[in-house]
């Protein structure tokens, strides 16, 4: 039980530390950008965790929501100078609409079939974004109009420091949403679906509705993160924001590698994967571009072989080995 009292304290301390880190760094520097991207991907992993972790619906199409969010707010900003906060909300609505549409053919699918169907849907949206050049700008990409006098309302700043705090705030909010869902009635229902869908139905769980709610919440969050990303990067193209490897698989990978279904999973996963990827790029990037991806892949395989339950489980085992406790009981916690 001490663990349960300890957890909020640890999380609070973690947020304070994350809030203090930038004070020692160059606000325009490379490290700040990596930290921002790490926070963003921790949030994305957590959004994916609602569907992939709690209900075990392995989506490989979440880039669709991310790209819808990024393009919607950016196009509205370009055309009508609409604040990205409002554009982001409209992006969330569109993403939810797409999630509802996608649920019609996919909600009854399980396992590999669900993964493949969502993968295909995500790719379809990428192809549409590439070909619908009148609206999206097509493969050449789209630039967020730069406003010299940046403001919070227009989500534009002269350094990335405010972006960092925005990403941190988003991560805290999304973690709270995840925790609320996981520990609430919906969390029970999703866990029941994950562990035995037929039994869940027979004892009264509306499995279709529960999965749909989870998918919509996850889609809306992912879309808003797309808006935050657009306002941070200022330029993107369909292959980046709708990409399978760049977004969809990476979201899943971060949650799975960190510890799927756990609150701490995507946090650990992002803190591991994003800096590692950046380091691999900077070490091998100039000499042999392919090598960075190879090193990245090799490390992933190694971690998964070491512990299929993810890094958080690996840490728990190591801790238990040092403190001499039995390991398996911690599996259900956080």
């Amino acid at each position, binding site marked *: 039980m001490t663990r349960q009292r300890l957890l909020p304290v640890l999380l609070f301390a973690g947020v304070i530390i994350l809030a203090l880190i930038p004070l020692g760094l160059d606000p325009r520097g490379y490290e700040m950008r990596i930290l921002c991207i790490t926070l963003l991907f921790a949030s994305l992993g957590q959004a994916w965790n609602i569907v992939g972790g709690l209900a075990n619906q392995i989506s490989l199409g979440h880039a669709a929501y991310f790209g819808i969010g990024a393009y919607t707010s950016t196009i509205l900003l370009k055309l009508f100078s609409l604040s990205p906060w409002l554009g982001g909300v409209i992006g969330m609505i569109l993403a939810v609409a797409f999630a509802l549409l996608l649920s019609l053919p996919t909600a009854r699918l399980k396992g590999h079939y669900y993964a493949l169907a969502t993968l295909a849907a995500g790719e379809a949206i990428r192809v549409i974004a590439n070909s619908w050049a009148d609206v999206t700008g097509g493969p050449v990409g789209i630039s967020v109009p730069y406003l010299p006098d940046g403001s919070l309302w227009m989500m534009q700043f002269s350094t990335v420091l405010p972006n960092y705090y925005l990403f941190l705030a988003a991560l805290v909010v999304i973690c709270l949403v995840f925790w609320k869902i996981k520990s609430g009635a919906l969390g029970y*229902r999703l*866990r029941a679906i994950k*562990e035995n869908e037929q039994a869940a*139905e*027979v*004892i*009264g*769980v509306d499995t279709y509705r529960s999965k749909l709610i989870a998918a919509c919440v996850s889609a809306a969050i992912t879309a808003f993160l797309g808006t935050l990303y657009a306002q941070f990067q200022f330029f993107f193209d369909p292959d980046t924001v709708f990409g399978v490897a760049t977004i969809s698989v990476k979201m899943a990978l971060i949650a799975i590698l960190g510890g799927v279904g756990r609150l701490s999973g995507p946090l650990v996963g992002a803190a591991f994967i994003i800096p590692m990827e950046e380091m691999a790029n900077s070490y091998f990037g100039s000499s042999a571009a392919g090598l960075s991806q190879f090193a990245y892949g090799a490390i992933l395989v190694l971690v998964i072989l070491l512990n299929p339950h993810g890094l958080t489980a690996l840490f728990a085992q190591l801790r238990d080995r040092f403190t001499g406790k039995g390991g398996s009981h911690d599996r*259900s916690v956080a």
Partner: protein
Amino acid sequence: MTAPLLEVRGVTRRFGGLIAVNDVTFDVHAGEIVGLIGPNGAGKTTLFNLLTGVYPPSSGDIRLEGEASGGLKPHKIARRGMTKTFQNVALFMESSVLDNVVTGGLLNNALPEARDKARQILDRVGLSAIADVRAGDLSFPERARVEVARALCTEPKLLLLDEVMAALTPAEMEEVIDLVRSLRDDGTTFIVVEHHMKAVMKLCERLLVLNFGELIADGTPTEISRNDRVIEAYLGANFAKKQASQPVETA
């Protein structure tokens, strides 16, 4: 007599060329404990699956409290008050015993009330001591009990028990029989599939006998034990012929 709680009329289920349940008709009244027996493969579990909506019937009518329930999704039928336990046990194996039962309680309650209700039920079925154990770590008889507790937490009017006494010791069987009786006295109606004849004869006031998907008998345990078609189905035609020439002995 009041209207039946469950009315089954001409229910048939085909799987390809196989007729698993064939034109079955019966009623169950509130407060009954009805046994459903028959040789392996007779269609008992399929019938339970049709009643709870796991599969829709190919034809025929199922009514719960007078309203058609055949072909509805299982969660809708559970909401109407009918659910079942699973023959081969289908618990949420990674979750604790308590969480398994709480999930059933969420059908009619918000989470805090569902938790209270689950604890009461665990108390009643004698599982409080293992409330925090992972369901996957339990023995088979314990799992079957958790199945019962989880189903009870949905507050069913009609509960279908599929071989919950399999692998129990005689003493444990007595406990389950007492539990089902006391639950019945509190207003739950039961249909029970069980292979252990002594337990069935003791627990049930009425038996339905299925053989090759057909309902071949419906009566009190004494009537059933003298029924020629039942004896033939269970013990073979030759035995039945021999039996017919001798005075009948009941089980």
